[in-house]
């Protein structure tokens, strides 16, 4: 398939209402064949694992690339310089080396994001006034999250929607004014942003002793965890605080789980209880594997998540994450990054060493 053909096929696939196992498989094998043909490092990786277009018969056989490979290798079917956009990870680990995802066009990413976002976050609303707690795309042109949030605002934000994080950080006076307006008008309001930005907001509001009761139908979307950018909060404490300070019930606090190395996001249906079940649309599927052997683990057993995201067609679609999870009815539960710190004895593990070596 050519690039134009695969893009066309994927856009059509995303526009379907759903996909059977067989339909997903056909598309997945086509995408794998495309990546095997055009992405040389991935081709070498697959061959080394004994997987080629001849031996891969099932989408589960498609070799999943460890997420760190996005830092070490140029994983792209198009020449990197031909990419319309390159999204980069924040580079907080591995000595500042950033994982890169190359997008020859954002049409597939944007379609994937919007179809899914409308269904899982908008839930029937055409538009809602949004407050964005993240820098905009001009400030962070390589951030997939900045692009995601700008799409949300552009295509699903009602008039008055605005970003509240600028060069000087959180613009609290403007944000509280927006929240007051929403409260007074009785219009539902949506706050979206990085999880750590919400912690800064909670701390700032607590310092002022401010609380809001946002109107019925208001909602919150947080993503990305705290990443050392704010104090760490347990999930229950975090959603309790959001609910108490902003008046949005925990069932309307939705967490998005996404990554730079994917073009599709996962959502839960609110955080009334944690950890909630997360799931994605019909063009992404997940497995839980034993990280050493790469083999599927039975439902109910904790392992490491592998995602097969057909929309991430230009890099690789199958990635082995560093996130622990368990498959359950309707999706998976996410337990966060796997961390062997407690089981290491007095020997030294890689991350601590790198951290110390960097000083």
């Amino acid at each position, binding site marked *: 398939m050519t690039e134009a053909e695969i893009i066309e096929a994927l856009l059509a696939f995303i526009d379907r209402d759903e996909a059977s196992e067989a339909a997903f498989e056909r598309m997945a094998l086509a995408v794998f064949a495309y990546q095997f043909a055009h992405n040389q490092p991935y081709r070498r990786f697959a061959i080394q694992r004994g997987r080629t277009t001849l031996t891969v018969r099932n989408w589960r056989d498609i070799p999943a690339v*460890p997420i760190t490979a996005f830092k*070490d290798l140029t994983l792209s079917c198009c020449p990197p310089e031909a990419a319309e956009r390159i999204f980069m990870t924040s580079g907080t680990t591995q000595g500042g080396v950033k994982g890169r995802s190359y997008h020859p066009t954002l049409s597939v990413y944007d379609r994937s994001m919007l179809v899914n976002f409308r269904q899982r976050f908008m839930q029937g609303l055409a538009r809602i006034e949004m407050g964005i707690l993240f820098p905009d795309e001009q400030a962070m042109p390589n951030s997939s999250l900045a692009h995601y949030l700008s799409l949300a605002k552009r295509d699903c934000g009602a008039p008055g929607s605005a970003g509240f994080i600028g060069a000087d950080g959180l613009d609290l006076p403007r944000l509280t004014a927006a929240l007051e307006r929403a409260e007074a008008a009785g219009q539902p309001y949506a706050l979206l942003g990085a999880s750590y930005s919400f912690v800064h907001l909670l701390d700032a509001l607590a310092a002022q002793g401010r609380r809001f009761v946002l109107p019925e139908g208001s909602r919150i979307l947080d993503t990305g965890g705290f990443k050392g950018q704010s104090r760490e909060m347990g999930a229950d404490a975090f959603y309790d605080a959001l609910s108490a300070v902003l008046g949005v019930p925990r069932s309307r606090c939705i967490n998005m789980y996404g990554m730079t190395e994917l073009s599709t996001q996962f959502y839960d249906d609110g955080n009334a209880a944690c950890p909630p079940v997360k799931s994605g649309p019909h063009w992404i599927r997940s497995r839980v594997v034993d*990280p*050493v052997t790469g083999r599927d683990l039975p439902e109910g057993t904790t392992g490491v998540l592998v995602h097969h995201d057909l929309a991430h067609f230009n890099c690789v679609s199958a990635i082995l994450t560093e996130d622990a999870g368990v498959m359950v009815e309707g999706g998976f539960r996410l337990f966060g990054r796997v961390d062997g710190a407690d089981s290491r004895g*007095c020997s*030294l*593990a890689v991350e601590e060493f790198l951290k*110390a070596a960097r000083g």
Partner: protein
Amino acid sequence: MTEFAGHLPGLSAAEVEWRVLDFAAWGESVQVSVPLLTEPQGCALAARIRENARAYLKTLPVAEIVSTIDKAVARLLDRNDPWRRKAEAVLPVVTGYDPETVRLGLSGYLRTFRAPQLQRFLAEDFVNPGILDAFQPAVKGGFTRAYGPELLLHVWAGNVPGLPLWSLISGLLVKAGSVGKVASAEPLLAGWFARILAEIDPRLAECLAIVWWKGGDAESEQVWLKQADTIVAFGGNDALAAIRERAPVTARFLPHGHKIGFGMVSAAALDTRKAAPLARLAAHDVMRYEQQGCYAPQMLFIERGGKVSPREFAEHVSRELAGFARTHPRRALSVAEAAGVAAWRNAEEMRAFDGGSRTVLGDAGDPWSVVQVEAAEALAPSGLNRTLKIVAVDSLDAVMPLVAPFRNFLQSAAIAAAPAELFRIAGLLGEAGVTRISAFGRMTAPEAGWHNDGRFNLLDLVTITEIEQSAEFAAEGFAPYAD
């Protein structure tokens, strides 16, 4: 099977709240009850240990303490003793190490605590160990005597069985009342040792307590930190920094942070006759305790120019690891440990695509991984649990710039080289911060009297009281026989 961890003189089991930790391996499971003391219980216990040590332990000649420890260690070395049998049965389930590793490891380790080895231990730090019993003449004049702390707190980490005995025995030798906090990963052996001591000398056993709190539980930790005169702590740098911050400024703090070990093989050791046995010893060091100990090798530097190339040596090591996988199976890995192994191996595989200078040996599903690298590469941790990087170098001197930047993490290095080269390289390694050089095959079994992390095990614990010559001479003037 249920086991009770800890040793709490003066407290009955019924007075204490217990938490149950579950362990399973090798088709068996063990429940271990660990004590959760309240703050008043902790304070009372600390006071009791301090008082008991003052009243009894500090009055014992060090030779008698050595003799009692020797008897206790003999019990644990006797394969027919009930305590030894219990250790062999239970520790593999708790730690996950295969029964053979535990059996051999225990014997090898405990042997370093018999009377002759303890005497060596004492002699390493004290020219005259009698200084622990009475004032001894000082070279400069006057007299000196060494006193251990009244209350010594040990915060143990890690899951190499028995490691706590090292500092516990050091504490006894300097006559310190000891409180040891066991790690959740191996909470038993220290308490058993205390109970064996109790069978030999009950009053001695009342001078030490074995307790538990959940790692990182600052509140429980605080109770003990504020009681101790001296704190010996093992763990990662973050955990140690947290303890240092909470410890009273008047307490002596002796931290043992995480360390990384490595090995070096000279071309002289790489002929066809010597290479295979050497590879077996190196693989043994990797296999033993799944690299969980700070002394385990995570990287080997192999000199080019021998009859056996670095690549061939890596293949030898791989074969030996494959053999050990059968005789000493790797313990079951947690998800986090498995992810650590996979992340390391995956990253190496990815880098292997850059060119032909890196080879990943073994299959992803094998319970071991070896990566061989042709280009010089700086020291870095492996994925642990039998993962090893083998780096080719043009000369052993080329290793120094690769390890020197990590001075704060260096400790053990194994060297296979001829005597002149051994001493020359040892000098360079010492300058770089390495504190222990051993043979291959002995990395995980430091000898008796080892200066852990380059420090004095006993000397660091004591304070010296001096009777200056002036006092001695002045006293003469007040003697009844004075003219």
